């Protein structure tokens, strides 16, 4: 059933694009269409159409990305303290609690956790960060994963992060050993997330450039929230309701 559907849908697309037979692309975008029809796309759209005529093979061989030549900003202007200040401002705007630490963050982290409570951490987390914490630490590792119900009974989760985007107040977890698998940062109600200054970038394109989607990625901008009631943002729905961000210089 599905194979037939695949062939039929691809056949319909070829027909819709005005291609005949084996993928030959008969474009009318390169001249016969009234100018008004391409006003939404501008000159770039018809330019691409022309290119396709000369090269009907798979698009954008290599990367596949078509935005490389656009004029939007690819790098931001904030650096040093300004960059860190921007990140803090944006995180706080979306109701994350931010703690800036120079030197050893262990005491700060312990101060954010209830003494004697139980927490979960990914296997690759820097041990030294938890040396001041006095409660019970469960390490989530391949083959030794906590069950969903066990995760539900943890007071908090402590992880590192891969990238932080200052302009939008966004922290990215990339499934690395120090970020952990997705469930551990989702089920516990309190997430303590450590951001290294070296991992802070200014704008979104700089953040994307540092990531690959080989593992699952999670972008976090403030704690769980909803705008579904009269479009007012309210923090605290299904994800962790408290997000503590610890920015460390090391």
């Amino acid at each position: 059933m599905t194979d037939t559907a695949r062939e039929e849908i691809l056949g319909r697309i070829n027909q819709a694009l005005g291609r005949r037979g084996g993928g030959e692309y008969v474009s009318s975008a390169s001249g016969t269409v009234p100018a008004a029809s391409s006003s939404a796309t501008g000159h770039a759209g018809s330019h691409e159409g022309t290119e396709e005529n000369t090269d009907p093979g798979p698009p954008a061989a290599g990367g596949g990305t078509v935005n490389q030549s656009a004029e939007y900003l690819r790098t931001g202007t904030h650096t040093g303290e300004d960059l860190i200040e921007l990140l803090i401002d944006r995180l706080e705007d979306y109701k994350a609690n931010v703690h800036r630490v120079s030197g050893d963050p262990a005491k700060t982290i312990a101060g954010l956790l209830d003494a004697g409570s139980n927490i979960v951490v990914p296997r690759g987390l820097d041990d030294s960060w938890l040396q001041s914490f006095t409660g019970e630490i469960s390490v989530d590792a391949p083959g030794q994963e906590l069950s969903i119900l066990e995760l539900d009974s943890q007071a908090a989760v402590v992880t590192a992060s891969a990238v932080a985007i200052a302009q939008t107040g966004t922290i990215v977890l990339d499934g690395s050993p120090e970020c952990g698998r997705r469930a551990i940062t989702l089920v516990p109600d309190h997430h303590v997330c450590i951001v290294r200054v070296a991992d802070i970038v200014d704008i979104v394109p700089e953040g994307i450039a540092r990531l690959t989607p080989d593992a699952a990625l999670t972008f976090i901008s403030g704690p769980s929230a909803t705008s579904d009631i009269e479009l007012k943002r309210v923090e605290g729905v299904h994800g962790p309701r408290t997000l503590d961000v610890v920015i460390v210089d090391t």
Partner: protein
Amino acid sequence: MTFLGMPLLRSTRHDDQEIPGGQGNIVEDESFAKVSHQHLSNQQLRNNIGHATATIRDKRSEVVAELDDWEALREAGSRAKNQVMENLPEYLAQFEKNFTAAGGVIHWARDADEANAIVTELVEANAPVLESGRREVIKVKSMATQEIGLNEHLETQDIDAFETDLAELIVQLGDDKPSHILVPAIHRNRDEIRDIFMEKMPDAGELTNEPAVLAEAARRHLRHKFLTTKVAISGANFGIADTGTLGVVESEGNGRMCLTLPETLITVMGIEKLLPGFDDLEVFLQLLPRSSTGERMNPYTSFWTGTTPGDGPQNVHLVLLDNGRTRALADEHGRSALNCIRCSACMNVCPVYERTGGHAYGSTYPGPIGAILSPLMTGVEAEENGSLPYASSLCGACYDVCPVKINIPEILVHLRGEDVEANHSPVSSQLDTALTGASWMMSDGKRMAAAESGLPIAHAVAGDKQINSLPGIAGAWTSSRDIPALPEKSFRQLWAENEARAEGEDDER
């Protein structure tokens, strides 16, 4: 320059053998003019929607103004989506190869029925039968599954689908229909939501109308389902061709719950949702949240590429849905409607949507984008969808805010032309005649003056009251509009009198 209102674009469709239109919740049962009339008289609805759209408009303007390169981002977004549409077979093949290589399974569905059947089969194979004799799945808000009527279909197959997005939950518990693609319960205010929760959540206890209290009630209501349900169904905001990655953009964490905790994940995505490369996200992750919720970034965005060993569902499926998208693609002047990333900015600025609400459009896709997308997917000749392109004042606000620069007014005009050709009605013939007459009369000052000399007589007949209905074809105009009371004199007559008086005054000087 485009002259709005004048259908100039000739039809250039590429379907000699007609491509079938879509089915499901994209077909209006009654004409827009008829349905909207009922909604316009609902003052509560108008207040709720007016309040909500005003709020979101302001938020969007603020965060868009923060970016100096917003127009360049829109241009880049538009270009990326055009590139996808022009090369859709190649991108689909590339996506399929990468998603499959990463452990995912792809299914193709020509229409709503086929997609529903595929999902049902997958649920039956992976979700246990509970004591009630029924199966359960949890769902992330998804326009595609709304479009194909998946929940209703699953219901008939003894499968209960639980919506987990707060607004979808409000709609589902209220036995209601979504009226906005981002905030499906935008037509409900906090008091109404409280009443629905009090009635439908037996364990909720006493609730106030505070949004935070209501959100907390939703959290408690769904928590157990998230932690125990074996199968989840989602849509997708993006499919990345060069990596085989899928992405969901959300706020509450219900998406993360559904995408992470169950054993099986079934995603339904339209074939047009692809982006060429992972790097294109640098544009779309700026365009979408700012246009949609008016945030710099939404709280949570998840990306997954097939399966990730030891992390999340290990049984991952994707249903690629046509359901009329290829039909829309065949229309060269309309195909850019497929570039839509479902942000809903066009709804929030639309003077028509703000007054009628989303239900009047009769489709999963309401507002300006729905007024073009629904008829493009079904064909204008389908049922009453031919009326949708007229649900607009062509003010152009939707085009200004569209993050991928879909020229909605131009496509509306194009589709009106298609509708006139397909469904040329006696009304439009009468209109042609009337406009020809008006053109003859207005082209000559003497004829115009002669026509206006009848005004005092008409005023004597109608009196000082506004006119609520006119006979004949003009009745179609007054069916949704009132005409102000007629003046005693025309502007020309007043001008002439005024001139005469002024001359008199000059003489006296």
